[in-house]
């Protein structure tokens, strides 16, 4: 049953291997005795392409394919919340960054209850400020306006 997914996995490995080769074009390969910075990456790139092809071809021979269920929405919200935190943290400070991060992350869940999210944001911002800024003395401003 693992087949459809193995074709994709194989393709992903081949693609990563090809990217590795592409990126290594400019690096001197050198010789087996004096390996340049390009030697190891090129070997690994080809190896990955070979392994990826093996994974994909092995799967292609079988017929019991099953579709994969991708659920992009939770992934998108979680990613956005992390990115927002990274973006806001140095610009506005810890508390505003968390105030954006929490609702965005919570939106990834099946249920979104506004009041709960607000309470959670407030409690955890206080917790993070207490532990990271006062406890561990990380040099972050709580607010940076």
């Amino acid at each position, binding site marked *: 049953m693992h087949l459809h997914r193995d074709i994709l996995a194989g393709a992903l490995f081949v693609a990563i291997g090809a990217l590795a080769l592409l990126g290594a074009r400019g690096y001197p390969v050198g010789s087996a005795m004096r390996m340049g910075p390009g030697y190891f990456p090129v070997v690994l790139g080809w190896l990955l392409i070979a392994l990826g092809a093996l994974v994909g071809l092995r799967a292609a021979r079988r017929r019991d394919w099953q579709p994969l269920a991708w659920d992009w929405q*939770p992934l998108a919200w979680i990613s956005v919340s992390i990115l927002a935190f990274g973006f806001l943290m140095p610009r506005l400070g810890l508390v505003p960054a968390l105030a954006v991060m929490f609702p965005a992350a919570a939106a990834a869940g099946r249920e979104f209850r506004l009041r709960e999210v607000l309470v959670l944001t407030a409690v955890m911002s206080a917790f993070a400020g207490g532990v990271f800024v006062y406890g561990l003395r990380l040099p972050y401003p709580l607010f940076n306006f």
Partner: protein
Amino acid sequence: MEILHSLELGFGVALTAQNLAYCFAGVALGTLIGVLPGIGPLTTIGLLFPLTFYLPPIPSLIMLAGIYYGAQYGGAITSILLNLPGETASAVTCLDGYPMARQGRGGAALAISALGSFLAGCLGTLLIALAGPPLGEWALAFGPAEYFSLMLMGLVGSAVLTQGDAVKGLAMVVVGLLVGLVGTDVNSGVPRYAFDVPELVDGIGFTVIAVGLFAVAEIVTNLERREPQPVFTGPLVGLMPSARDLGRSFWPALRGTGVGAFFGLLPGTGPALSSFAAYMLEKKLAREPERFGKGAIEGVAAPEAANNAAAQASFIPTLTLGIPGTAVMTLMLGAMVMQGVTPGPQVMTANPELFWGIVASMWIGNLMLLVLNLPLVGVWVRLLRVPYRWLFPCIVMFCAIGNYSVNNNPVDVYLCAALGVLGYVFAKLECEPAPLLLGYVLGPLMEEHLRRAMLLSRGDPSVFFTRPISLAFMLATLLIFAIVLKGLIRPAARGVP
């Protein structure tokens, strides 16, 4: 007795009030995060390990040891009470632990798991003290060829013997090796795969990989599950196991320790295989094998002891050779490197306080778990009832702050989000991320040794097969391949539901 002297040195270093406090904090935090459903020990350590950055080396590693034990125990709690293993190794614990919990003996199962782990931990510490120095001395004779072959064996072993598909595991190792290459090449100073991003010139940080690939991907995968996990909230009657339970568990725990220590010494095989092997051994030896799977306490004691013994024993290759045997050890190794400690045969002689301090602190972490966590089981169990919709944003917060705090640089946070997407894709395609992590850590080292070996042999690759120790590792690698090709291990391992 030199061993006693060494252990005394270690305990002298580790046993200060401050270090004990760090150890306690580590155990408490490790259990707190590790008990959350779907968060395995690896993710827990990855999440919490930025907290230890700002401490000096010894307290930081002691706290990490505490986190490690707490996380392991948190995993045991979810396996036994929720039938939800956080990692492969604890899947075996579910087989009898969950039935025990359903019979109202969850408390006894949890206690036996902690006691069995403690027994294994004590013996494991002794094993490190006994086997570490000779192995370290032996390793001093290793040249680049030996190191390369050993790492190859470890990588192939980890790829092939973990759960899932062997070929995909190998491919993941190669991806990890490539990720490890990002950054400046030590030999030539050429920045590789940096794409003119200044942050990438220094390489991709360890926390970024561990948190992105494991934690973020795990949260998303958990959120996708339509059905919330049924939480077993039956009463926990009687935490302490009866004398009969203890008697029944003693020998299985001891045998499990032996099995675990054996597998732990081989880089790459790790706890998953050992806990499975220990379980099968007990089932074979049992007078009434039909009790297994229905709540036999031996079925909890043996794999939990084996798991811990393997983890403890895998410290030996990690510390003396600098080659982590398991993904969790990869994290510990990464932490040591961040603290400016280069594991390898020299650590023991150059920095004995640190080496023996780590050994002692592992034992203290284990003890701390026993004396503090067991009475607190009720608290952890209550935590299982906190709705996931409150928990996961908090985990995201730990991910974000953890990554930011490494360099105080938002780029690490962005990279973590990107790797989270990759981790989700890997999870969907059933590609195990653990071999990738091992490849990532070993990549630069492996390249370095390969280059040096080839330079010394004037470009002749036969050097890997003419030096006896290197040849032995190469033959072992081939043997692992042969075993897999014959299907001796994997179909059996699949037999575990």
